[in-house]
């Protein structure tokens, strides 16, 4: 079966006062029907740019986007409209993404009206059902976004995104701005909706444990490129790319496991002034001469696993047992 979303070799360059900024450098990504793909990476690595490009809010300078087999890379707004119905987005900032002057009813009804999904009464009933489905009180319909907390506003955004029962929802840091206790509520809501409607998600997040919790597959980006891709469990249990190893090792945890940390030196380089060769080599603990001269391509190392490193798996995680086994021991 063709994947629901298949993007290949996406290029996005921004013209900035300091020079050309290569935000996406040959990024390929796939999302299958009903699956959840997690996207992680340092800030500035291109996650939001990729999300916006897939939504057709940024025009790529190269590459191709297929949605359900249809090439949507250069579709004009009118031709794009039926695709929009099946492809929705949720943003990080529940404050900025909702029109402050519109009631919750209007916000949620908007996509339903735009796509003429039914009579006024039908839309009314659908809005009420959506408000209930995302766990907001019935009287929420008449209120303005300002009268809600961050978590509740994210529920409003989710209700709007699922109103048309899309096939794919792209969520850019949907819970990063929320408190932990509220984060868990929203994560559970997203999972329940997926079970009910079979929606596929592409979820951008920086918390690896959170991504592992919700994603079937995880894609790791660094400086505009995909550096590793694997099933969520494989990525956590045996990361192959040195950056993934560092990311996993830096994850703060309340498990008093005495786990040693691998702390990287230096900052991520600027995407304007990208290092030659492997983009990670200035910070990579196992870099050698070849890494500064040649760029490692993203290649398959085993079934469903891809990694862009000349020496995959060589940098060992700084602990003996897979993280998930450690958890089990602590829990016992």
């Amino acid at each position, binding site marked *: 079966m063709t994947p629901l979303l298949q993007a290949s070799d996406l290029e996005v360059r921004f013209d900035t006062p300091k020079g050309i900024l290569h935000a996406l450098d040959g990024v390929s990504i796939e999302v299958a029907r009903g699956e959840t793909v997690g996207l992680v990476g340092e*800030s500035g690595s291109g996650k939001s740019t990729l999300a916006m490009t897939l939504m057709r809010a940024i025009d790529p300078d190269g590459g191709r986007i297929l949605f359900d087999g249809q090439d949507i890379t250069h579709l004009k707004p009118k031709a794009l409209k039926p695709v929009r119905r099946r492809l929705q987005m949720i943003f990080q900032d529940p404050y900025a993404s909702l029109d402050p002057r519109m009631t919750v009813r209007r916000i949620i009804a908007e996509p339903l009206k735009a796509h003429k999904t039914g009579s006024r009464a039908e839309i009314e009933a659908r809005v009420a059902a959506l408000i209930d489905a995302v766990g907001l009180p019935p009287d929420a319909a008449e209120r303005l976004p300002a009268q809600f907390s961050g*978590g509740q506003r994210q529920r409003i955004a989710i209700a709007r995104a699922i109103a048309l029962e899309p096939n794919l929802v792209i969520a850019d840091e949907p819970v990063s701005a929320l408190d932990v206790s*509220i984060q868990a*509520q929203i994560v559970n809501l997203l999972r329940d909706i997926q079970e009910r409607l079979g929606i596929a998600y592409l979820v951008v997040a*920086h918390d690896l444990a959170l991504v*592992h*919790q919700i994603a079937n597959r995880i894609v790791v980006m660094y400086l505009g490129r995909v550096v590793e891709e694997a099933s969520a469990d494989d990525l*956590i249990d045996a990361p192959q790319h040195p950056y993934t190893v*560092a990311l996993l090792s830096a994850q703060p945890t309340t498990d008093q496991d005495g786990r040693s940390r691998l702390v990287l030196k230096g900052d991520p380089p600027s995407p304007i002034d990208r290092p030659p060769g492997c983009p990670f080599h200035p910070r990579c603990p196992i870099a050698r001469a070849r890494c500064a001269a040649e760029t490692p391509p993203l290649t398959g190392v085993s079934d469903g696993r891809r990694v862009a490193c000349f020496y995959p798996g060589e940098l060992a995680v700084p602990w003996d047992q897979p993280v*998930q086994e450690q958890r089990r021991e602590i829990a016992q």
Partner: protein
Amino acid sequence: MADTALLQIEDLKIGFPARDGGEVTIVDGVSLSVNHGEIVGLVGESGSGKSMLALASMGLVPRPGRITAGSIKLLGEDTVGLPDRRMQDLRGGTIGMVFQDPMTGLNPVRTIGSLLSESVRRHQRVSRDRALEIAEAALTSVGIPAAHERLSVYPHQLSGGLRQRAMIALALVNDPAVIIADEPTTALDTTIQAQILDLLRAKLVAAGGILITHDLGVAAEICDRLAVIYHGRLVETGPTADLLAAPRHPYTEGLLRAIPRFDRSRPRLVPIPGQPPAPSMDRGACSFRPRCDYAMDACAKAPALTPDGADRSVACWAPIGAPVLERRA
């Protein structure tokens, strides 16, 4: 050990004028002390009063807010109601602060060198050149490469990680006795956060410090003791390992359960139901009651923070793990 505390906050209350002419209490009777060589983690959700507590310790409660009761002793001297001049001497000298957003902590129109050397000259009688030398040494000590060249750059010319290091250098440049870091890594990437936590651990332990964070994982990484704050009140305190292994307050337990963990079976997350309270919510009952699984009749009256075993305290009528009879009390 009370008399050896570097910073001792006692029964502190902070209020803001309310629209109806009254006053809303946003920090309500908090007591917290920091000893030499100790890192205390102050953990709580957004709006719980963490930053206000930090600002109060620096004598910086924003107007029209004010400290309405209690004391804050810095090396034994009560700073509440101290004249501005004296407070300015202490701030940046005896007590240093690191903010979440380096752009609030670092004046954007001043070079790093002038920010640091001015702070040095405010607190130490040294020449301009000597102050710059001290500034350069401070930058080096927080791991900023090419420190000498960095003296003449502006904060925005540094990356996020380096800027946070520069702010730590500014907080440390006069060897303060106490350092308060308010969400110092929240705006940073995970790998940079790990670097900054390493640095903070080394620096805070050499003096004494408070690390404020909403992330229990971050607190667990470097804190010796934790204090959990909810609705402007401490609900639980104790040594980090004990508190995490066996939380006594239902809110602490709820926070720990809500955190996603690496687990192949992906158990459903257990959220805390409902929302954190608005600061204006009535304080007569236990503030956590509307969200608490264990609530009972007694909870209609607010419990006080009470000693609870070795080095621990909890504000709950029925702490988790207490004998059943006691729980029914």
